[in-house]
Structures are given as C-alpha cells and as structure tokens.
C-alpha cells in the first residue's frame, strides 16, 4: 500500500486540510450548541405542550449522536468512512427488508447482504470496474437465488423486492462510499450530507411560511409546492457555492455546471424523501422503525440521501471524475 493511500485511508491528521471541511464541521458544532437555546426559546414562546417539548429534545439528543456518527468516520479517514457507509447500507436494508417482509426470504436477503459486502470491498479497493459490475451481477444472482425455494408463486415479488433493496441501499448508497476514494473526499461528503439535510429543513420552513397548494397529497400530505420550490431556490446557490470551493479550478467550476449540481441535489433529495413516503404509505406505516428517538428509523432520517448519491456521483464523474491520481485496486491489485 502506497504512502498516499495509507494517508487517505487512515490519515486523520489531514482531517482539516480543506477549508470547506473546517467551515462545515464548525457550522455543525455551532448549530448543535445553539439548538438547545433555540428549543428553549421556542417552547417558551409557543407555550407548547410537554409532549411537543419532549419530542424536540429527543430529536436534539438524537441529532448529537447522528452528528458524531457522521462526522467522526469522515474526519478519521476514508477507511472509516467507507465502513460507515456500509453500516448505513446494512441498517437501511434491514429496515426495508423488515417492513416489506422480504427478510423472511432468507436466500435473497443473504445475497443482498453479500452484494453490499462486495460493494464495500470494491469501494475500499478503489476498483471501479468491480464496483460497476456488481449491480448487474448481483441482480443476476438475486434472480437466480429466487429460484431456490422452487416456488414460482411470489417469484416476481421476492426478486423484485430484492433487486430494489440492493439497488437503493447497496448500489445507490454505495456511491457515497466510493466517493471516499477521492483524496479530497471529506468536504465532498460533508457538503452532500449538509445540503440534503438543509434541503429538508428549507422545504419544511418554506412550506410552513408560504405553503398553500399541496404538492403530492396522496404520497405526503404535508408537502407543498411552495416548500419544494423554496428548497430548490435556497439549497441550489448554497450548494453551488460550497462546490465552487471544493472543485476550484476544475472543469466543474463554471456557474452553470455548479448550479446544475445544486439543482440535482435539491430535486433528487426531495424525490428520495417522496420515494420513502410512497413505500411507507404503500405498507400503511408511519415510520420505518423506532430506532432513533424523535426521528423514527434510520431510513426515515437518511431517505433523501439515497437517490442523491448516484445522481451526484455520475454528474461529477462526467466532468471531473473521482479519485484522480489515486492508486487503484489497493488490495486486489498485488502482483503474485
């Protein structure tokens, strides 16, 4: 393993090499420090019930944990980041499999889990060809695994659910892990996560202030057209600004391309949210689990990120590419 690779995988000393990382980390810490004050003022002013107050505090406490689980691996090194993304993939798949009932199909679940393990290896290894090959190969394996019980009844359903599960939580989320092969992965990932979370908050605030017309009342009754548009208007320039510093002087660094990326993050982020709403509504559930107090399940929290990861990965890949100059096939490429 070369020195560069080792530094990227485990070099926590480089955590704050990039200014954007410093700014985003500090912003996160300041927000977490100010939030209790804000909650205190708001609950006092609104004279809210103790239930509402408890929920806000639960949410806040959960956010501290979430922030630590997100920040620490990203700052610590690419190795920990990729493992973190793999953990996220597994937890999301687990919730998905349990709410759809797919978890009872042991063979298919096992294949999806193995697929996620391979995606994680491909990301750690910086082996792009394997990473790309894994989607069709795993789909083929799921279609084959579905044959094992020798029961055609329900074949389409179990294979379909398995493929969707792998596509969303193995393949799509895996793009997030693969981004960690870029030397400057820290600001990229932090920027995405920040933008996606802010996008949710902007949509909520704009909807609250200006929302009249419902957006998709059957899928998600609280979403409004004003919320959706407001989020695009606010998230796009903020993200473009951050991206300008991250990809300074590259082919991506033109106003149109940066704004295009911002629009993608905002729009696709909202679609991810709606996608999970649809899944839950189809099943008649409110939350995917009761794991994070005040939030619901892992999926409820990270839904917007799922579709953003591949969209953004391939947009950036088209113009500049990830992992430029990084050694490839770190583990598998050894000469025997």
């Amino acid at each position: 393993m070369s020195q560069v690779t080792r530094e990227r995988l485990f070099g926590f000393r480089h955590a704050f090499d990039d200014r954007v990382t410093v700014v985003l980390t500090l912003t996160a810490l300041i927000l977490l420090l100010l939030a209790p004050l804000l909650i205190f003022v708001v609950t006092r002013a609104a004279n809210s019930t103790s239930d509402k107050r408890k929920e806000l505090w639960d949410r806040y406490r959960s956010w501290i944990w979430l922030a630590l689980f997100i920040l620490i691996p990203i700052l610590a090194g690419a190795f920990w980041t990729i493992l973190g993304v793999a953990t996220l993939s597994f937890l999301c798949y687990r919730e998905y499999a349990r709410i759809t009932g797919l978890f009872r199909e042991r063979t298919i679940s096992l294949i999806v889990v193995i697929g996620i393990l391979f995606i994680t290896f491909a990301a750690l290894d910086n082996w792009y060809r394997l990473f790309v090959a894994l989607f069709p190969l795993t789909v083929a394996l799921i279609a084959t695994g579905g044959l094992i019980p020798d029961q055609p009844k329900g074949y389409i359903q179990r294979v379909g659910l398995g493929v969707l599960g792998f596509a969303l939580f193995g393949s799509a989320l895996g793009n997030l892990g693969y981004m960690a092969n870029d030397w400057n992965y820290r600001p990229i990932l932090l920027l995405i996560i920040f933008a996606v979370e802010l996008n949710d908050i902007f949509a909520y605030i704009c909807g609250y202030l200006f929302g009249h017309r419902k957006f998709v009342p059957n899928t998600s009754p609280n979403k409004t057209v004003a919320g959706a548009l407001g989020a695009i208007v606010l998230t796009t320039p903020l993200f473009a600004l951050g991206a300008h510093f991250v990809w300074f002087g590259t082919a991506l660094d033109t106003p149109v391309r940066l704004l295009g990326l911002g629009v993608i993050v905002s729009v696709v982020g909202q679609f991810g949210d709606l996608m999970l709403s649809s899944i839950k509504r189809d099943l008649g559930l409110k939350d995917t689990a009761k794991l994070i107090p005040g939030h619901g399940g892992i999926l409820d929290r990270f839904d917007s990120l799922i579709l953003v990861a591949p969209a953004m990965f391939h947009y950036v890949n088209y113009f500049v590419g990830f992992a430029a100059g990084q050694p490839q096939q770190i583990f598998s490429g050894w000469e025997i």
Partner: protein
Amino acid sequence: MGNLMEPWKLEPARDTGLTPSERFRSVRRESGLLESLAHHVCFSMLRSYFAIAHRLTIIGRDKLPAHGPFVLAANHCSHLDALILGAALTPRHRERAFPIAAGDVFFQSNVTSTFSAIMLNALPMWRKNCGPHALADLRRKLQEEKAIFIIFPEGGRSRTGSMMPFKHGLGMLVAQTNVPVVPCGLVGTFEALPPHRRLPQPVAIKLVLGDALQFASTANDRTGWSQIAAQVESSVGDLVTQSRTA
C-alpha cells in the same frame, strides 16, 4: 389510469414499530438473518458441549413431528433444560423454536433480554402478572407462525429434583387445536446443575421423547386445560421414571 396493478402481498415484520428493547421482550418478535445465524451457532455449539461434557443421549428423536407447530413439554430442574431441548432439535426446526423462559430471570435487564432473544430466541413468560392475553398471544403465534415452543409446565425449576405438578397454562396453548405436544423426560440435569449451583458438573444427561399427544377434541376451558396438564404430566413422569430405571 383505472387499470392499476393488483397490489403485492406485503407483510411487514410483526414487531414493526417496537423499540429494540421492547422488541427483544415481545412475543411478536421475528428473527432476522443475523439473529437466526446467532441461534444456529449457539445451539450447534451447545450440542457439541452437551455431547462432550454431559455425554447427552437422546432417545426417541423420531417422535419429533417433521415441522411446526408443536410443543415440547419437559420436567424442569436446571437452567440447562431449555438449552438441551433446543440443541436436540434439527437445524431445520431451530429456525422456529422458541424456549419460553421466565421473564423475571431472563428478560429483566436489557443485557439479559438481548442475550436471551438473540442467542436463545427465547420468549418471556411473566410469572407474577401473566394475564390470559399473554397466553392468547402465544397460542396465536404457535399456530400462525408454525412455531415450536419449548415449555416447562411446572412453572419453575424444581428445588429438590422431583417433579412438581404441571400448571394448566400449557392447556391454554393447545386445547382444541391440532398442535401436538411432545412429552420429554430429562434425567441428570438436576445433578449437573441444580438451582443452587453456579457452574455445571460433567454429569451424564439423558433426554427421552415420548409419543406426541393431540388435544383437538379437548375443550378450551378450565377443565380441559387441567385435563391436558394432567395427561402431559403423567406422560412426562412416566418417561422420567422409565429412563431412570433403564
């Protein structure tokens, strides 16, 4: 529009909406991939342990029904008992096997309930305030999930080694159903790990399985339950004396 597809039959896990600690204590719990793996590994290791340390002999293994639902009812004088019955099942059975364990011992703290649920796949039975609906939930689970229950109808470990009278909770699970009850006699577990000891002694243990009993035509009321308890008690008692003398 108007020509929408037929909906798929999607059945979320029965424990959806429970927090992790509620889930471990819940009768509605359904194991996932990792948990199933944990039960398998745990009981396979226990099987080797019993074979080596206790020279476990199992007589009448062919009396086990091919698949669930069924109930294994045994005499109880040691913490080893449920582990032995679990280990005696085939790997195919283990997936759906649930030892019914005392809530106040195995599910009191988060640590013990996590262990009992993940490693042993145990379900809690609260001895102090176990209402009829707790048993009704178990009765439903037994049939709907084609489950296998490992039950000790004495309601606790015998402190003397001799069998105590069976309680009629067992009857409430199986009366007027086609669920067979397999009586099991355990010999040697009291000597191996009596309630007052902490660590097991390498004493030989014998498990004898009897012919499955059916209670499809026994009334699902108090007299029926007592009748079932009495009948299973005498079968288990016979198996124990039979294997002691043999």
